[in-house]
């Protein structure tokens, strides 16, 4: 009896215990269902908002999408693991001397992947952009006036890159969307060109674009803006290199090299390096004189001319005698 009682109590206890777990399951199930509902609700909301966005026009959509993108980006990076890019330039200091006739710089770097089973380097895209100091610039447009071609129109830019060359693993339009390139100011169309304040508002957007295109065209013709669609080459699994031609008339000053690492149209990492272009020796001295001590420079020019002339006249005299 006692045993039975204990058994019953035990069994009861057992029953009780066995009865507990189905109850628990039920609760979990309820939670899951509610989660699904919540998910569906959110999805619905998202669709509705997207539809609303589409109805509101492309402008509205752009504005709606832009703030979402940065919140998505870190997630992706976390999913893949944080790649970084490191790079360096073959020379950090270039001397512009009397014999300067342009030079070549090599930018090489590596993609660091934190995990061993990293994807093939072909999934990565690298864009290397070398940018000279920004400078003001004026573009003029000729028009025919009574048979003569005269500069009539002009547009002043407060700042434009004096030099801009980029190399990439493939054409940049294939690497990332225009909006992404725009945000990071990559490419001739997206690089920072600031119009002069007084030029704003006077002209039509179309006309300004024409002037801007003319700057790019003229600078490309002078090899001051260059684009190498397949200029970045991967060597092995993570190393890459690219070379850049600096023409003889490359504006003297600092150059900034920006290296962008992309994957699937997203910027993963960025690295910046610098090169300094400096006038050296006689070139530097003459340039400093011309701009800082112009009177002395002018006197010096006339002095040299006088010496040259006197030397010539001495030679002439000796010849005639």
């Amino acid at each position, binding site marked *: 009896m006692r045993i039975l009682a204990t058994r019953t109590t035990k069994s009861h206890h057992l029953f009780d215990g066995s009865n507990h777990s189905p109850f628990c399951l039920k609760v979990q199930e309820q939670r899951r269902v509610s989660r699904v509902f919540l998910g569906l609700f959110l999805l619905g909301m998202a669709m509705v908002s997207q539809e609303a966005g589409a109805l509101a026009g492309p402008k509205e959509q752009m504005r709606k999408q832009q703030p979402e993108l940065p919140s998505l980006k870190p997630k992706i990076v976390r999913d893949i693991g944080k790649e970084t890019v490191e790079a360096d330039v073959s020379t950090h200091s270039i001397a*512009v*001397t*009397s*014999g*300067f*006739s*342009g030079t070549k710089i090599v930018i090489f770097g590596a993609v660091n992947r934190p995990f061993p089973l990293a994807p093939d380097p072909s999934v990565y895209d690298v864009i290397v952009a070398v940018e000279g100091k920004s*400078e*003001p*610039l*004026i*573009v*003029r*447009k*000729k*028009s*025919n006036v009574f*048979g*003569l*071609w*005269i*500069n009539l129109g*002009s547009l002043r830019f407060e700042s434009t890159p004096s030099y801009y060359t980029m190399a990439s693993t493939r054409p940049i339009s294939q690497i990332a969307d225009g909006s992404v390139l725009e945000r990071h100011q990559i490419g001739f169309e997206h690089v920072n060109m600031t119009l002069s304040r007084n030029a704003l508002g006077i002209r039509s957007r179309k006309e300004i674009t024409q*002037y801007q295109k*003319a*700057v790019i*065209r*003229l*600078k490309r013709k002078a090899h001051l803006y260059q684009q190498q669609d397949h200029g970045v080459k991967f060597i092995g699994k993570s190393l890459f290199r690219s070379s850049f031609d600096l023409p*003889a*008339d490359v*504006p*003297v000053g600092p150059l900034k090299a920006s290296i962008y690492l992309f994957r699937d149209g997203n910027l993963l990492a960025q690295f910046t390096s610098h090169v300094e272009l400096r*006038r050296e020796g006689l*070139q530097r001295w*003459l*340039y400093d004189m*011309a*701009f800082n001590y*112009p*009177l002395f*420079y*002018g*006197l*010096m*020019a*006339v002095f*040299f*001319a*006088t010496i*040259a*002339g*006197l*030397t*010539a*006249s001495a*030679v*002439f005299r000796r*010849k005639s005698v």
Partner: protein
Amino acid sequence: MTLYLPIAEMSVNIFVFLGMGCAVGFLSGMFGVGAGFLMTPLLIFSGIPAVVAVGTQAAQNVASSITGAIAQYRRRNVDVKMGVVLLAGGIVGSLIGVQIVKILREAGQFELFVSLSYVTFLGIIGALMLTESLNTMRQAHAGKSVFGRSSGQHSWIHGLPFKIRFHRSKLYISAIPPLMIGAFVGFLGAIMGVGGGFIMVPAMIYLLRIPTNVVVGTSLFQIVFVTGVTAILHATTNQAVDIVLALVLMIGGVIGAQFGAAASEKLRGEQLRAMLAGLVLLVCLRIAWNLIAPPEELYSIGRMLGGH
């Protein structure tokens, strides 16, 4: 061999510019004229910014005119008093010219202005010289040279106040006309990068009636100083004098001038003048063509000198 020009900010082939200096020096030695009116357009055609071409040429003109000026001075063919009056006007003209260059450069119209000035002056002078030399050639007995006429005829010019006696020129005239002529030539020198002898010499002969034997010497004397002042003004106002380029052109010019002077002895005066006239007209037409021909590229990037 390339040479980097510090002010023009470009890399050029040194031999091309030495050759240009030589060729222009040869012509200037052969014809006995300044090199500026040929050199400045050549520099512009070869891609040197117009302002730098004009400023640099001003310095080069000092070198090319000083030789002649010294030779003339030794032969006592310089009326220093007249030269100083012309020079005073020349400095004023140069000051105005350099400022105008600055304004035009900022407005983007300097190249147009230089081109128009060249077309106008080269056209007129080339045409005059050509007709004169052809006429002389036609008259086999070339007894009367245009530059040989010196008369005591008086014109309205001799009625002006502030008269000064110029002993060497044997003149007693007002200081105003030489001042004006000097100013005009100084102005042209500043905007065209020329010495201005091609204006100065006829003006001195026809307007001031200075005896021909002192005309060339006095003109050269004032050109040395006016171009020197112009070069300094261009250096201070427009930072437009490229010393490296100027030196290359001077070396070429000095060598070329020697051969040119030797070559001129084998040719007759009117033949030389006809050839020079032809050359002047060719340069004129070439510049005019640039103004009229539809450009391949309508847009151009303006140079912002000193915008550093």
